[in-house]
């Protein structure tokens, strides 16, 4: 077998390849459209923003986030494979996948140092930072480690270093030593992955189905104490409200404070990490981080989709009632998304105002308006993806599989973020209609999309097989 072939087979299917290519293609088109069609200010902002981050040593730790993304994808797939008892008996599996995992890490860490100008030292440092960023997800997703022993110390150290500019500056002043520590960290994490002892310990750590990838330690202690659990007594109440509560409970009851806690925790965490770290560089860069935060909030919302299929097949719910349940629950998620965005923007601005006072209410309002507009644009796409699992149409979205759907969600998120940005900075991006017209178009499209979505649900629930 060709070395690395096993890992490639694990990571890549034709559909995924096409989707990733499409994703990069879209980003390229967006960049190209700004560079070719956009105004001078837009071009300067795009080029200047990247240059600013690359030139500012304080921004370098944030750059480690980018290799972290492929690291997350590889680690998630690899862990899911190596955790299976079956993987233990596949001859030489660990050996076959080890080298490609390391090579992918090196490749993922290379682009940013190559883009940088200047002496080799800082570029090597950014490369090692990237490598550590690539390796850290392997530790975070490692099933043999509890969050207390893996994730929390890493986040604590990152927070102390990144939120404390003097400490960060001191570490950057001794780059060779810090770089050596980062190299050791990355090497140690990756080497640990492929030790037979780790592999042995992994067997038997399979998470209960449906609880994979979450904080199992936390979830296991809170599920039975969740607020919703107390309400399920008494006779049947087959109203729409009852079923919506039931969906909510099945989907989010695992968490003590239900859906709200999930959304706010995720949104705040991302904004805190990204917005604030960028805010260290300058206020403007921190504000730009809102589009990234928006994309993250949208994606997180999609990950925690309501549960209306599967076990729901056996609930005593008539088909015609399922239409309303599916649509309303989808709107409910959308409403949470909007609230999460509003709250996230507020927190982000408050944090930035601490670093760069005073608080600029005008700017907050503009950003909020842009994000809510972006959410309205994304809403139909999000609902459609969100309820994808109720469809069994072979030509429908289910054919893309889970990673495909996530990539599709990312596309929707990025597209809507671009539109949102065009509202925030009129004239700097290539959507040049007057602002009121743009608002009217967005609102009209959103209403029309809802009507079509409802019609589609009606067709499905009345005329299609449900399993």
């Amino acid at each position, binding site marked *: 077998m060709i070395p690395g072939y096993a890992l490639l087979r694990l990571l890549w299917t034709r559909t995924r390849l096409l989707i990733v290519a499409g994703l990069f293609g879209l980003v390229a088109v967006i960049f190209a459209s700004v560079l070719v069609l956009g105004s001078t200010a837009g071009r300067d902002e795009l080029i200047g923003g990247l240059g600013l981050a690359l030139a500012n040593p304080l921004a370098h730790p944030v750059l480690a986030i980018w290799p972290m993304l492929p690291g997350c994808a590889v680690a998630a797939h690899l862990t899911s494979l190596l955790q299976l008892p079956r993987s233990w008996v596949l001859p030489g599996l660990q050996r076959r996948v080890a080298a490609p995992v390391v090579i992918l890490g090196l490749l993922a860490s290379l682009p940013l140092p190559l883009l940088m100008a200047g002496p080799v030292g800082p570029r090597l440092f950014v490369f090692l930072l990237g490598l550590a960023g690539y390796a850290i997800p392997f530790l975070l997703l490692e099933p043999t480690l509890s969050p207390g022993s893996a994730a929390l110390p890493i986040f604590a150290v990152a927070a102390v270093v990144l939120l404390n500019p003097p400490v960060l500056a001191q570490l950057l002043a001794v780059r060779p030593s810090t770089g050596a520590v980062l190299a050791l960290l990355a090497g140690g994490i990756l080497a640990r992955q492929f030790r037979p002892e780790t592999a042995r310990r992994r067997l038997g750590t399979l998470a*209960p189905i449906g609880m994979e990838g979450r904080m199992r330690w936390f979830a296991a202690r809170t599920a039975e104490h969740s607020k919703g*659990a107390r309400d399920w007594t008494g006779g049947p109440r087959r109203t729409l409200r009852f079923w919506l509560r039931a969906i909510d409970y099945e989907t989010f009851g695992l968490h003590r404070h239900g859906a709200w806690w999930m959304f706010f925790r995720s949104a705040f965490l991302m904004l805190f990490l990204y917005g604030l770290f960028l805010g260290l560089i300058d206020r403007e860069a921190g504000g730009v981080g809102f589009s990234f935060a928006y994309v993250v909030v949208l994606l997180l919302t999609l990950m925690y989709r309501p549960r209306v299929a599967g076990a729901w*097949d056996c609930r*005593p719910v008539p088909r015609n009632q399922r239409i309303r349940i599916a649509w309303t629950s989808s709107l409910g998620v959308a409403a949470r998304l909007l609230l999460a965005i509003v709250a996230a923007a507020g927190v982000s601005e408050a944090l930035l105002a601490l670093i760069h006072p005073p608080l600029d209410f005008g700017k907050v309002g503009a950003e909020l308006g842009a994000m809510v507009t972006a959410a309205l644009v994304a809403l139909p796409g999000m609902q459609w993806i969100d309820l994808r699992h109720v469809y069994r149409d072979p030509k429908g979205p289910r054919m893309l599989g889970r990673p495909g759907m996530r990539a599709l969600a990312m596309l929707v998120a990025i597209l809507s973020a671009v539109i949102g940005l065009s509202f925030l900075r009129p004239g700097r991006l290539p959507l040049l209609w007057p602002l009121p017209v743009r608002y009217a178009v967005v609102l009209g499209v959103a209403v029309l999309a809802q009507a079509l979505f409802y019609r589609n649900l009606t067709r499905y629930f009345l005329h299609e097989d449900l399993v």
Partner: protein
Amino acid sequence: MTGPVGGYAFEFRGVTKRFKHTVALDRVDLAVPAGAVVGLIGRNGSGKSTLLRHVVGLYLPSEGACVTLGQAAAALDAGTLARIGVVQQEADFIPWMRVGQQLRYLSSFYDRWDRVLEDRLVRDLELDRTARIGTLPPGNLQKLALVLAFCHHPDLVLLDEPVSALDPLAREAMLRFLLEVARTDGPTLVVSSHVLRDVERVVDRVICLEQGRVTEHAELDELLERWAEWKVTAHHGTLPQHLPEPWVVQQEGAGREARLLVRDAAGELQAFRSAYRAEVEVRPVTLERLFPRLIGRP
């Protein structure tokens, strides 16, 4: 409440179901009387699960119509759906809940939930209420599915491979329970299973499917009376390689001893004994022995 009183629990009227180029059900006409205990048997992929999914309206027929408890299966209302209990072949529960949580939650969907029965079944089937569902072995998931299917005293219970993952003791307990339910509550029970010995103990009617077609639909007693196994010993002379009698469906052996599978041959016994001067020991057939015949196999 709608539904049959002494009528049919469900009816299939010329139901055909196609999945692209595959015909899963082929012009099925069926009428299962209310209160019957039916064994749904057939090979893998013969259409058993597809048929059961039509009964609850999860699948819609490509042609024909399906009526369940007096309503079109495609448009069952909440009240009628709550009168049906289902054990799916692959139970789909909420993995993060504990067994007790799941029971309390799902019981709130039904107006006839029987806590006493729930306690009894949980005890008899040795289910741990504090166990998390995501960690339960397949057998215990099946037990939980059975508890959930019966505790609301349904009028129609559809059991798709209900005991396949149970250990012998749990299977025995479950079969005893099914017999008891059939006697007391009198719901219509449809048991789809490959374990024909278990089916035979419980059911009073058999529906046999092969390649989406109903190849047999009869009372079990009537079916077993029509068929028999003869152990033939010829004391004088030999038995031919192929006995010419039309009611001999299968012959194993020749010469002095043979085993015959016969159909509708009760009245032919004396004449056969005389013709071949043979001793014939008549044995009842089991459903398992009969199964290949019911699906039209040699």
